[in-house]
């Protein structure tokens, strides 16, 4: 390892200062300890060590053992060459010390290194600034790694520029993880887009077939349910990796088409994550409620409103349910329960009963109040 005169390194603010001790003895002069105490950052001051008796040796041992690759360059020599590097630097780059010393740091750069990052580095050196950046570097064997580089000037006691300090950290894993996350998001988006198209095409087929068979109205009803289901599943794709989905997103997605101006349906829900398999039943039931409201209830008048709240409830046996409350107001006055409430509600109630869930409806004077409850397994 290259022998250095550097003994005391004090980080103060973001500048790194070095005091020299030519004698290799304790640097504990009042002046330098005062400096260390005024420092706001970490204190890297080598002190008298009973084992080595030399702070210089201590510095070298620390540098040899740290897993962080470190180098120093000398800006007073031609082309700012590396004058010191540690073992970790050798391990990271694959070069031997004798191949490193004397090189300018650019020997780690290659074809795919971002010139913009290199320019920032050059600017930091020119203005004696501290910079932290990430750039693609090349090892001796040609393989690449993402280097989180911390670069800064080192001054002597008189404030004269002595060296540049560089610490390198291989952050390739982090870069890989970020790339994979981006890829997964792009895939989810593509799948989501295609799924929506598939639902749209299914809608087309149902309508076209219904029309050809003189069953336009039936086809329309089938379609409304298929589309409600499609909307209910939309948000699940973004969340698919988590295993559960946000109930509120599914509820909003199902009901969105019934409130194009976004001022008739009010959503009041906590962040509740629920099982994806709850969604088809909940989606279809909400669709029936909204269809009913459009025909006979709060959405059949110009100013009626619907309040929807959802939460997880735990009963006395410790079983959890997703509970969605529905309250219409401002629709036509209601005079008790209607004689017939439609096949849609029959379907919804049957589906809910399979999971021990229920749909309760109360035909209150100012509007329908309903509660969907669905046990979560």
């Amino acid at each position, binding site marked *: 390892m290259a022998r250095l005169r550097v003994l005391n390194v004090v980080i103060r603010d973001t500048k790194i200062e070095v005091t020299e001790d030519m004698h290799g003895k304790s640097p504990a002069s009042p002046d330098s300890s005062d400096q260390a105490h005024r420092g706001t950052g970490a204190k890297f001051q080598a002190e008298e060590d009973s084992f080595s008796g030399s702070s210089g040796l201590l510095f070298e041992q620390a540098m040899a053992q740290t897993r962080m690759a470190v180098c120093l360059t000398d800006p007073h020599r031609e082309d700012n060459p590396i004058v010191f590097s540690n073992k970790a630097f050798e391990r990271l780059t694959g070069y031997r010390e004798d191949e490193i010393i004397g090189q300018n740091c650019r020997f780690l750069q290659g074809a795919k290194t971002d010139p913009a990052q290199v320019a920032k580095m050059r600017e930091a050196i020119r203005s004696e600034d501290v910079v932290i950046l990430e750039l693609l570097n090349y090892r001796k064997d040609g393989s690449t790694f993402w280097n989180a580089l911390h670069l800064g000037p080192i001054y002597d006691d008189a404030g004269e520029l002595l060296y540049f300090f560089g610490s390198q950290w291989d952050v390739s894993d982090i870069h890989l993880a970020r790339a994979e996350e981006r890829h997964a998001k792009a895939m989810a*988006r593509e799948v*989501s*887009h295609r*799924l*929506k*198209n598939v*639902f*749209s*095409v*299914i*809608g*087309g*087929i149902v*309508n*076209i077939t219904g*029309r050809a068979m003189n069953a336009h109205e039936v086809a*329309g009803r089938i*379609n*409304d349910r298929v*589309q409600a289901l*499609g*909307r209910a599943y939309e948000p699940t794709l973004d969340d698919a990796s988590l295993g559960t989905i946000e109930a509120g997103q599914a509820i909003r997605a199902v009901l*969105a*088409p019934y409130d*194009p101006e976004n001022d008739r349906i009010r959503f009041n829900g906590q962040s509740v994550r629920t099982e994806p398999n709850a969604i088809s039943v909940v989606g279809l039931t909400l669709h029936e409620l909204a269809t009913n409201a459009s025909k006979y209830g709060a959405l059949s008048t110009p100013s009626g409103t619907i309040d929807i709240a959802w939460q997880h409830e735990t009963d006395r046996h410790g079983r959890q349910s997703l509970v969605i409350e529905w309250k219409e107001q401002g629709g036509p006055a209601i005079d008790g329960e209607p004689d017939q409430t439609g096949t849609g509600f029959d379907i919804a109630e049957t589906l809910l009963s399979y999971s021990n869930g229920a749909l309760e409806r109360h035909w209150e004077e100012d509007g329908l109040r309903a509660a969907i409850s669905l046990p979560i397994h």
Partner: protein
Amino acid sequence: MKNILILEDEPLIAMDLQHAFEDAGAQVQVATNCDRAFEMLNSTTFDGAVLDVNLGKGHTCKPVAIELRDRGIPFLLHTGDLDRVGEFLRELEAPIVPKPSASTLVVDRLCAICESRAA
């Protein structure tokens, strides 16, 4: 609302929309790409249009949307990919009906836009 242009590369969706507009008393022309849409725009005066955003092979409805805007013809975007429509929307401020939606809803929304323009 008499003459409607539908730009949609998926034939089944286009046919469904065509039926829904015809049921509402409109005459419909369907284009599956921008070139066809421009041909139709040059021979027919349209009252409104429904544009699918992604027309396959990286093509979008953008050129047609700009032409419609310049001619003052109301239109809406009918798309399943609301993210990709983003920048486009900011430029044109066109209304969106997300896919999948009932074809009758698309008709209703376009009628509403046309009426609000007329008013």
